[in-house]
């Protein structure tokens, strides 16, 4: 009995940990480069998921076509958000206030729009892989393995992108020293846009891949966003490695609490962990100071 429970907790923890990591990766990228706390991240997640759902349900196309469509829709949405609401306040004194409220406003509007376009009923987005296998009495879905693999691969890709490509180096330069970067003729505002679009694509991907596990409704972006926020802070704001490690740590922790103490303790447990963490290490697991980011 214990073995099954432990395997169950491990599997759930790794699966959700990888998804939290995927969401947190987008948040941490935007925070690191743009210094923007994107509270519309959950809304972008919902945009991606509904776009994919629409392709599957209305156009009757397979999920493999819908997946890139959802990701693209999320990225375009994030970029538009940048153009309309973020760009005008870049470098202005009220940047924090304005973007905080604007992103909250956008996420309300997106849920409301989703409610109007697609009714409040729960939608089912089909999984990319629908088979499963049994390991030690626990059902392991291939979709879950796909999510874990994708998440790990994306962390690697983003890391390589930031380290070795020109664009990636530009992003890191902007995040570390905006003035110097702009003096080296790096288009700062455009770089912000690219980072926000990448982050949007990651959120959209998470939305499409995760929706088969939970059903999709207009509010379903909220919890993943809160979890991603927790992961981001736990791992250290702006730290990619932190997001990866913290995603798994928190996912496994939450899963074990759920299996051994009951579901209602999961969220309080995570919050207690994060409060302890903030007291012990205020900058998070891989806390990086103000100077060096990404």
């Amino acid at each position, binding site marked *: 009995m214990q073995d099954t429970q432990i395997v169950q907790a491990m599997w759930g923890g790794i699966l959700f940990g990888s998804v939290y990591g995927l969401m947190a990766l987008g948040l941490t990228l935007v*925070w690191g480069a743009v*210094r923007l*706390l994107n*509270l519309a991240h959950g809304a972008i997640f919902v945009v991606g998921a509904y776009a994919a759902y629409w392709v599957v349900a209305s156009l009757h196309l397979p999920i493999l076509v819908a997946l890139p469509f959802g990701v693209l829709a999320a990225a375009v949405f994030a970029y538009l958000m940048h153009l*309309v*609401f973020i760009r*005008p*306040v870049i*470098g202005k*004194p*009220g*940047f*924090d*206030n*304005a*973007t*905080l*409220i*604007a*992103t*909250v*406003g*956008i*996420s*309300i*509007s*997106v*849920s*409301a*729009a989703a*409610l*109007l376009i697609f009714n409040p009923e729960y939608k089912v987005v089909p999984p990319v892989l629908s088979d499963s296998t049994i390991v030690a009495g626990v059902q392991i879905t291939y979709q879950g393995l796909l999510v874990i693999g994708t998440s790990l691969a994306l962390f690697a890709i983003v890391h390589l992108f930031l380290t070795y490509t020109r664009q990636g180096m530009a992003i890191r330069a902007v995040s570390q020293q*905006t003035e110097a970067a702009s003096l080296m003729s790096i288009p700062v505002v455009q770089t912000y846009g690219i980072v926000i679009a990448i982050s949007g694509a990651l959120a959209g991907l998470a939305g499409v891949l995760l929706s088969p596990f939970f059903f999709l409704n207009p509010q379903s972006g*909220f919890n993943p966003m*809160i979890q991603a*926020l*927790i992961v981001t*802070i736990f791992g250290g*704001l702006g730290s990619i490695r932190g997001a990866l490690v913290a995603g798994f740590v928190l996912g496994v922790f939450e899963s074990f609490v759920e299996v051994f103490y009951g579901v*209602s303790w999961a*969220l*309080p447990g995570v*919050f207690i962990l*994060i*409060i302890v963490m*903030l*007291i012990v290490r*205020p900058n998070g697991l891989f806390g990086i100071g103000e100077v060096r980011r990404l």
Partner: protein
Amino acid sequence: MSTGAVAPAATARPAIDQAAVPWRRVSLLAVGGTVLAGIVLPWVLVRLDIGDYLVTLLILFFMQAVVAQSWNLIMGYGGIYSFAQVALFAVGGWTTAVLASSLGWNPFIAILFSPVVALVAAVGIGLPTLRLRGVYVVLLTLAFHELAGEFAVTGPRFISGGGYGLTTVPTFQFGNVIGEQRTIYLYYLAMVIFVIASFVIWRVIHSPLGVAVIALRDSETYAVSRGINQFRIRLILFAISAFLTGLAGGYMTHYNGGISTSVFNFSNIIDLLAMIVIGGWGTFGGPILGAAIIIGLDQYLVGIGDYRALFEGLILAVIAVFAPQGLWPLIRKTYDKYLGPEPPAPAVPSEQAAYPAQLPNQRGGG
């Protein structure tokens, strides 16, 4: 801020800076007239057909304005991105509800405990969070909101009432008064709370504490280096805000005769945020104006139903980005033009005017 702060008059009377005597910019006539109008208004309104309804709307307005104002005090003035305001409102509401319904206390006695418990809760949240930067405050206060909402549903029966909240809380009774008369008394009670809250907030903003708060918001580094204890100031501000919010929560509970777990709905946070942003972020009158606008518009927006949230979100985003001061400056200008006691003295050419409002390297900061 006493006159003792001003240098003793030697030969020539020193010119007092306008900012040091804020009450000089307030016309007693205008304030007194407004209060008088507020006292007379319900007696006039109840003569109308829908008067009773209008009076209840005004009660709602008073309470929402109290909560919006106290949220604005910490968020607009203090720059503390707390999302715990609705939860603190609920704490106030639940305190008095439990005291009145489980222990059978008189609502007028029980309500006195709701601001106190809300204040204690705020200090409890504030101690671990307010030392941290903005982003952490957002997360931890949201966490408090979620946990409080969770507890209100799953907590012990005398709190959760079986998952729906407490539905049989005694209401305010004024002797044997019923009907219109009772509505008017309720109105006066709400108005007293509103006036007290507004005065306290106005006073806080124009006290040394308020000046320190604004200094911290505008340039944290400079303010801290001038010896302002950021954590202490923030904690005091948070406590004041929670105190007033808890009082409003207590009133609404006895007014409605119950408190349901739906207070934790996210739309309540959004409505309050809309009031602050539309009215005027970080201005004294903004939240009051915003509360009036939102509650007034609500009566017309019932028809558009689901589109309401869509527009509300878009308006929030647009105003936050393109008109961060909201609508308040407009009102302020009109007031200064027609009702202000005297045109503000020509700005004293001092080196203070030469300082930029914001240090140039204030980017982000959290």
